[in-house]
């Protein structure tokens, strides 16, 4: 069933909001200094029944964790408990203003302090900056702290080392701060070679940005050595925390020599992705970087909690600046706190183990029909396949992934990381039952065998059964249509009522 745009069905003079008694208020004398709007924005209005139906129908065109397994490697699409949503909507959290007097938000500050404390304990790091709004924002925050620390030392280093397998945000973040990016190749086994790192290290290197576990689904086995080498060179170790889910409660980044790491609350701590956001990306910091953490932060004292919002309030610290207005993604903190409390120390560790177990189960069950680029070694919470098994079949990674849609699954992450050809990165998370994993495995085996048989029809045109078939992305980019515009006026046709 097709669903038109609100711009095609809505009407500017219709509203789904009544103002009741207040309607009269609108007639008051204006104090706008002559700046009244001259041209009204064109906003289609709909009554509530129309609005509900429009967005319910649109929602039905989406895939979601609640409707099926979401094997997107590096994205950690896990179950979002409904309790978390309920807690975030308590008026004491959801209906509190960021600039209310501190005396009226003691519980809110306590909540932030609570999440901070748990994040520090889980990562073994002494400090955390809570305000970054998402993972990439956290990266920016961490790298800013590094830059500030270097500046405090009077050094202006120019280079950041980033492995080939890194998320694109890593080099983009470094570049945003004016750094040049030097790429480090991966070893045969998919990990970063400590020798390759040492080779690039110099007094021009500000930091290395490593993802660990890395995007090949492997733990960087030389990480401690790498960290030591980096520190020896006077540089800092930024760790991309996107894959924290694999090691939660088992390994502490602080024990590995990490100086800064962002934490995606929307991955590891189950705050919902919401079709692409909002995220939340607190950054844990080492002793060396802690003094440079950005404003604001929460402090606790004998009279309760307080907020440090200005540098003048914290004479012993040297905050490098402010990442955003206000205090960070409070709504996400509440959800994460709910998840943390629910799991506890034992449940979090179990979650990490189950995530790793499930990824390895998929690896073991598919290795004979798909291909593992780095051989038969255990993976962490995600397993990376390449397209060797599709060679000569006429089926591409993209085709294979799109064919999964017809089987009722969201595709895995494709063509990432860049270090292997035709990458397929699968992350089941700890939220899937064994029955669900078995069905997923059976489906992928079936597809892999169909590809092997040369059943290319099933792949080339896929998906067939989704709300849309393959979309022309080239056309979208070449002739961008980024908003609705009114259709060109046509000759008025003789009026034809649908009812006639």
């Amino acid at each position, binding site marked *: 069933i097709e669903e038109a*745009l609100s711009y095609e069905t809505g009407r500017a003079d219709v509203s*789904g909001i009544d103002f009741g008694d207040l309607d009269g*208020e609108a*007639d008051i004398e204006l104090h706008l*200094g002559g*700046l*009244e*709007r001259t041209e009204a*924005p064109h*906003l289609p209005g709909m009554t*509530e029944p129309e609005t*509900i139906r429009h967005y319910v129908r649109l929602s039905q065109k989406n*895939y979601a964790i*609640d409707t099926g397994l979401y094997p997107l490697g590096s994205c950690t699409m896990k179950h979002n408990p409904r*309790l978390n949503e309920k*807690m975030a*909507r308590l008026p*004491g959290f959801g209906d*509190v*203003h960021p600039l*209310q007097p501190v005396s009226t*938000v003691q*519980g809110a500050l306590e909540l932030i302090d609570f999440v901070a404390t748990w994040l520090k304990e*889980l990562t073994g790091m002494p400090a955390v900056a809570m305000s970054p709004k998402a993972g990439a924002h956290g990266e920016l925050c961490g790298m*800013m702290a590094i*830059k*500030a620390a270097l500046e405090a030392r009077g050094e202006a280093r120019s280079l950041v080392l980033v492995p080939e397998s890194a*998320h*694109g945000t890593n*080099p*983009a973040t470094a*570049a*945003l701060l004016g750094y040049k990016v030097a790429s480090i190749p991966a070893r045969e086994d998919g990990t970063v070679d400590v020798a390759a790192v040492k080779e690039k290290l110099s007094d021009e290197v500000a930091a290395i940005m490593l993802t660990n576990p890395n995007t090949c689904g492997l733990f960087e086995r030389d990480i401690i050595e790498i960290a030591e080498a980096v520190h020896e060179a006077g540089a800092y170790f930024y760790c991309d925390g996107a894959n924290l889910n694999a*090691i939660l409660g088992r*390994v502490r980044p602080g024990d590995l020599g990490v100086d800064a790491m962002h934490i995606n609350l929307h991955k590891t701590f189950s705050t919902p*992705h919401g*079709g692409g*956001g909002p995220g939340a990306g607190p950054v844990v910091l080492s002793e060396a970087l802690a003094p440079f953490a950005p*404003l604001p932060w929460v402090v606790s004292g004998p009279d309760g909690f307080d907020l440090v919002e200005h540098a003048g309030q914290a004479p012993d610290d040297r905050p490098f600046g402010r990442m*955003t*207005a*206000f205090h960070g993604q*409070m*709504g*996400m903190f509440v959800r994460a706190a709910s998840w943390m409390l629910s799991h*506890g120390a034992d*449940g979090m560790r179990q979650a990490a183990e189950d995530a790793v*177990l*499930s990824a390895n189960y998929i690896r073991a069950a598919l290795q004979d029909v798909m291909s593992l680029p780095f051989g038969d070694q*255990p993976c962490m919470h995600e397993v990376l396949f390449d397209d060797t098994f599709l060679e000569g079949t006429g089926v591409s990674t993209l085709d294979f992934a799109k064919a999964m*849609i017809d089987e009722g699954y*969201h595709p895995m992450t494709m063509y990432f990381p860049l270090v292997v050809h035709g990458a397929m990165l699968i992350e089941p998370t700890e939220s899937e039952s*064994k029955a669900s994993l078995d069905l997923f495995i059976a489906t992928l085996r079936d597809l892999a065998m169909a590809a092997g048989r040369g059943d290319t029809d099933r792949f080339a045109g896929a998906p067939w059964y989704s709300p849309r*078939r393959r*979309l022309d*992305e080239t056309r*979208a980019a070449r002739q961008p249509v*980024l*908003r*609705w515009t009114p259709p060109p006026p046509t000759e008025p046709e003789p009026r034809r009522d649908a009812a006639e």
Partner: protein
Amino acid sequence: MRYLPLSDADREAMLARIGVPGIDELFAGVPRAAWRAELPDLPLARSEMEVERLLSRMAARNVAAGSVPFFVGAGAYRHHVPASVDHLIQRSEFLTSYTPYQPEISQGTLQVLFEFQTQVAELTGMEVANASMYDGSTGTGEAVLMAHRITRREKAVLAGNLHPHYRAVVENLAHMGGHEVVALPPVPVGEDDVLALIDDDTSCVVVQSPDVFGNLVDLKPIAEKAHGHGALLIAVFTEAVSLGLVESPGAMGADIVVGEGQSIGNGLNFGGPYVGLFATRAKFVRQMPGRLAGETVDAEGRRGFVLTLSTREQHIRREKATSNICTNSGLCALAFTIHLTLLGTAGLRTLARINHASSVKLAKALGEVPGVELLTHAWFNEFTIRVPGSAHAVVEDLAAKGVLGGVPASRLFPENGHDDLIVVASTEVNTDEDRAAYVAALKEVLG
């Protein structure tokens, strides 16, 4: 554990299938030195009932805005959000879906973003908008960087009455990125010297209206001067509802319009998550940061939507990307879109007028309290008053009487000496009784 579907029997069967004796073997890649034998030093798992009890107790230690006469603004505003908005954004298919990278099974989210982009462009009076930023402050930072890219200059001029947090974000980015920022001091009454600072090195001028004290600013002369020097005008707003009544930045000549969308569809949430609105002219679209949904057709020729122009983005361009941003504020943008669709042009205009009326009533009433001076002459739903003595103390005393009366300017600008000013907002949620309670409490506090 209620969220973990694997039973111990499942785990054993799976380990057997993998061919390892235990879970530890799967962590063999982790250096032994990094293994933690013991659990983190944190409490064990709790029941839903216990978690609810603990967090509810914490929440109860806050004064919820809806429980008292409430007039706090300065960048975040309390409005009424229809129940249908919150219902719809909690639909599993919206709440628990990922970024719509697979358009075949993400048309719901993509079409919403396309509607959102159109609404934001219309609201701001611009040609195109992106699929949202984290919030208004980070969006402002991105806007400045975008202006640098377009003009190939690196000096931004900030008006004094830009929200100080927004200014701090811009300054921080500039400092870290090696750019220049010239920022004027705040001016609660009258105009600052922003015009005088624009020169041929200026990349952009950043002006907020309504500004942080509530003043409406005529952007036309600033746009004219900026354009004369080859600079761009970045117009900022923190109260999106104002666009229903106040002249649009686009109509006044802005090149980039950026602001906070929280007021529409989103609650206060103690500061986040919010939704940054970002719009510009069509010719600048390839320099725009952030995600974009675009229209195209599928293999059968049917209209459909995709994320597009991603060659600007970090996952393709890596260090050459326009920004490192890789999320938008999807769910907040959805709430914004639904609420604005419910409002429509007519509803938004009425809502905006009611907001204005609400604040006009309050401004008059407060201005008549002995000792209080109303400073703002032209405003939307927020204005500034001068009180005798410390505004900070007055606000605290009001809070003790159960009225949240606004933000002391000293909290916003601790180093600028405006210790006797309170920034006060009044919206459609405030009743005559709320306003009367404020007046009465203020008289008591001052009396």
